[in-house]
């Protein structure tokens, strides 16, 4: 192996590590605030570029319909709970979303399509929480996990219906390559790095400076204490899901020009995000980020040496991570939260 290959592998590892890191951050964010281990995060990540690809091709993707349907379901649930104004807004929102989708598809404007793609995914993320998780606030972490795995299958299955089995390649935001020593790097990589860095800084600022961020942290640290302080855990959950799906959507938009986008390509990165998050005990952001970079690098190197088994090796990497965790926690309770 020469220096160029080494450099390429490291660059490759860092780029995938950054994506896994973004996913790991969303996983930790959603889990600490809502106790939901949200497996379909990867599907949300893929839905964004796929929606974009169809819109610029003057087609109205099914994801827009799904987003509208989720909003309508949210409206119905609120209606059942006796709310008056919110359901009207939500039904209106569902209609507006469809309208905007049709408009974006008819113009085929990339900017509109970008905004639509991100918007649909964010709405879908938060509506998923409202429609599937909020109705069972006292369920166990395990029940949530089973449910979220079920949703993964639904979203992946629908992804095939909406977008077909094809892979799409999006035009990069930053075309061209940079030469770092002997290693050629697509400029788009830097867009991904910049996005990740911006998110890390934004989240840091949000959690350390803003009272809303602190309220979210409070929910994550002590749900009971938060409720007694008048912080609504439902609202916190919605904020967490909104933020997480926004991170995923933007991540997906920037990633798609580098790899490809297809309905089935979200799940594996999402699982790798989990592997990374487990290193931080599913609660620590910095450790999750370190884990993600480790997973990315490991993957790049195993792709070089044993490409057929690279995914298997990454998942096997979970075993030593869990082993370290189990040495750290020697508790009795174990079973449930």
């Amino acid at each position, binding site marked *: 192996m020469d220096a160029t290959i080494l450099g390429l592998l490291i660059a490759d590892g860092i780029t995938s590590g950054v994506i896994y890191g973004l996913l790991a951050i969303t996983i930790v964010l959603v889990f600490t605030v809502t106790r939901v281990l949200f497996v379909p995060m990867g599907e949300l990540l893929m839905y964004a570029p796929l929606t974009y690809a169809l819109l610029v091709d003057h087609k109205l993707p099914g994801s827009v319909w799904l987003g509208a349907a989720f909003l309508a379901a949210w409206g119905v649930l609120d209606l059942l709970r006796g709310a008056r104004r919110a359901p009207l807004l939500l039904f209106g929102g569902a209609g507006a979303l469809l309208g905007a989708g049709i408009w974006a598809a008819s113009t085929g404007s990339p900017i509109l399509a970008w905004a639509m793609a991100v918007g649909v995914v964010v709405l879908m993320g938060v509506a998923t929480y409202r429609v599937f998780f909020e109705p069972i606030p006292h369920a166990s972490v395990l029940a949530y996990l089973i449910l979220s*795995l079920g949703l993964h299958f639904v979203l992946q299955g629908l992804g095939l*219906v909406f977008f077909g089995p094809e892979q799409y390649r999006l035009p990069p935001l930053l075309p061209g390559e940079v030469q770092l020593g002997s290693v050629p790097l697509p400029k788009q990589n830097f867009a991904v790095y910049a996005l990740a860095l911006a998110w890390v800084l934004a989240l840091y600022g949000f959690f350390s400076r803003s009272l809303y961020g602190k309220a979210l942290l409070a929910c994550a640290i002590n749900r009971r204490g938060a409720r007694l302080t008048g912080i609504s855990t439902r609202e916190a959950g919605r904020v967490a899901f909104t933020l997480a799906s926004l991170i995923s959507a933007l991540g997906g938009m920037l990633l798609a020009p580098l790899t490809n986008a297809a309905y089935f390509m979200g799940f594996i990165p999402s699982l790798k995000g989990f592997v990374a998050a487990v290193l931080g005990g599913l609660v620590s952001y910095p450790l999750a980020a370190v884990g993600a970079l480790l997973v990315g690098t490991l993957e790049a190197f195993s792709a070089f040496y044993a490409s057929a088994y690279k995914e298997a090796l990454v998942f096997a990497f979970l*075993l030593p991570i869990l082993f370290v965790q189990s040495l750290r926690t020697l508790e009795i309770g174990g079973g449930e939260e």
Partner: protein
Amino acid sequence: MIRWILLALAFALIPVLPPFYLTLLNFMAIGAVVTLGLYLLTGLAGMSSFGQAAFMGLAAYTAAITTTRWGWSPWMGLLLALVLCGLAAVVLGSVTVRLKGHYLPLATIAWQMALSILMGNLVSITGGHGGISEIPALSLGPLSLRDPMWFGFLSLGCAVLLAWGCAQLTSSRMGRALRAVRGDGVVAASFGVNLPLVRLQVFVLAALFAGLAGWLHAHFLRFVNPQPFGLEASMRYVIMAVAGGVDRIPGIFLGTGLLTLLGSWLQDLLPVLFGRTAQYEVIAYGLILAGILILAPRGLWPFLEAHLPPRRQILSQGRPLPPPPIPIPRSEVLLEVRELTKNFGGLVAVNGISFVVRRGEVVGLIGPNGAGKTTCFNLITGLYTPTRGEVWFAGHRISGRPPFAVHPLGIARTFQQPHLFGELTVLENVALGTYSRTRSGMLACLVGWDKLRGEEQASMAEAYRALERVGLTHLAQEKAGKLPLAQQRLLEIARALASSPQLLLLDEPAAGLRAREKRELAQLLRRLAEGGTSILIVDHDMDLIMGLVDRVVVMHYGEKLAEGAPEGVQQNPQVLEAYLGVSVEAAG
């Protein structure tokens, strides 16, 4: 009884079923073998796995490779398949059983993904996505099971046999231990259950069930490929179990049967409705699962069961367990607490406490709320490890030992808030107390060996006797969750008595009781004390304490304030000031 008749009927149907339904029946039976594993894992122990199909796959490929390539007999293949599944489960289980519950399912997802990838990519061994064909049919002596009808007898036989085993396990000491693990790990550990070990055992057992199913699958279809052993399949087994009702064996069969049928209908129907481009059944499965979890989290079986006559346990009148030997004579020191200290972060909850309890003695541990009394109990029973100091019991140093190792030496406790298993009957709750006096392991319980030896009957008889001592036999068949507080407290005492403890730790047994109930409790405790049980009791009811104990230890801010005979302590001005909230000037 009805249930077994239904099963007999299922066997009788095998010869008359048309081929399509015979195949379906075989799939149901094989599915049931997997989901029965989930019954043990999820229904009893409250753990979960999304890797059962991977265990199936491991076994199926082992069967395929050993028979087609190495020319082994299928039965040898089964043996190797089970060994491999067991080993994989041990590795996966041992890194996760100590962790919070959600790590195991995450680990099983990773295992499932890794194995799926290997099945597809290790082309030289597994044949890749093309799979391995021409696996030989099974034969039992001269009888070939090539025909799905004859195979149906085998697969359904396996399912029924395992269901019987699961029922045996459920009503055994290990079954109670597993349900205790799910309900409340602290109680389980306090009654001698080694949580990580039991969790590991049941995970391995479930993996072996899946392995058996995988082997059956390979020899039924006589062809293996990666597709039926992917994450989707694992998910489908979880859905089957959850849909029917994962904590009841009939629910498992109901869910497996229904979803297998549904699956075959969906495969025919959905493409007709929506065209053939997508896997609509996967979407349907996901939505079904979501609907069940949100609308009927306990599955469908409870709705049917409501129309069936309730099942009664047979109250055992057999011979109770042999009493444990008492090694040390009366008045010897039984429990000694030396300079015990416990810090939580910066907070000193217990600070240098020392006291002893002699055999046959009743000692009261009193002090205001927050004085550290319950922390003391948790230190003695091993729930907490002391920061400094030691606890000795009957000649053993027990500080630093886990609770499940402390309890069998003869310490049993009750909890301030009753920690009972509301879904179990009163008698079953008490029977958990006999756990550390009995020996049958997971496999022995699965095959009913504990009942053959009479150990289970003895446990139940012992539990019944403990109920007699607290006067709750008339409620033996009720669900413990329905009992009012006073009876729940008595039930906790009965559970502790069932372990035949040398030392009984009672944490505020009178709290929340009415005057009459307190008097009855006092009588019960006095009878126990007269019977020679050593007791360490925490309570705020001075009437109860002073009328019962030989000695009082007063705690205040984690320290020992006073110790002595009840009369002396009651006059101690420091005690009055600190504990009773009466200032010395006012009282004097």
